[in-house]
């Protein structure tokens, strides 16, 4: 199981670093919004993986909150970019 945890942690870390790199570099604000959504999804997957490996369910409400309110930032920014483009 330790090998599985190491491989999964490495893959999730590479995904999170790619998202952070796109947040830093992204040519437009939409790229940054999409990358921050990916970062939130990666954090949710990491929380769930930690729960599944350690056999507890303590952070399931945190995942529910992220699933509910992860829409707010991206929709508001996309809404304002739709009418005013300042990248």
């Amino acid at each position, binding site marked *: 199981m330790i090998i599985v945890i190491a491989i999964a942690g490495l893959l999730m870390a590479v995904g999170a670093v790619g998202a952070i790199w796109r947040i830093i570099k992204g040519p437009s604000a939409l*790229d940054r919004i999409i990358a921050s959504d990916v970062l939130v999804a990666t954090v949710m997957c990491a929380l769930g993986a930690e729960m599944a490996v350690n056999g507890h369910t303590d952070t399931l409400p945190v995942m529910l909150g992220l699933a509910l309110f992860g829409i707010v930032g991206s929709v508001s920014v996309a809404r304002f970019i*739709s009418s005013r483009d300042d990248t």
Partner: protein
Amino acid sequence: MNLDLGFGADGFGVRDVITALLVLLSALMCFAAGIGLLRFPDVLSRLHAATKPQILGLIAIVADVAVTNPSVGTVTLAVAIVFFQGLTAPASAHMAGRAAYRTGHFLSDTLLVDEFARVEKPADGPDLDTPGAADAPDGAEAAEAADSTAELGDDSDSPADDLERR
């Protein structure tokens, strides 16, 4: 992969195998999203890469938690998480894709079909002066419906459906 390393003497149950496989699937989705965000050229294709861990990775990891701890509360929370993520992730992706189209942050030569161009012209900059953008309710609504179905992937009969809807 040698699955016997790192385990106790009690062996490696079916539940552990399922846990390992689902964690690896979710981690692979996160990895694919990161690589896709780095490698894809424009906003719309990055949006395609971004939806992988949001739905499939989350379904895998939540099913993993539900398999590891099977109880009524866990399964209820897992179903609620998948339901609300499936409700909110397409909406935010649709808004981001629409904003990308309106502000011209996409490569038009990578598009096979551009149905939305018949109603609304993609702009290079702010398109506040485009007449079909904000004050054409019927055409904009029909185009939004057609565009959302095309973005969600089931664009099998989109042109006929679009004409019929208008």
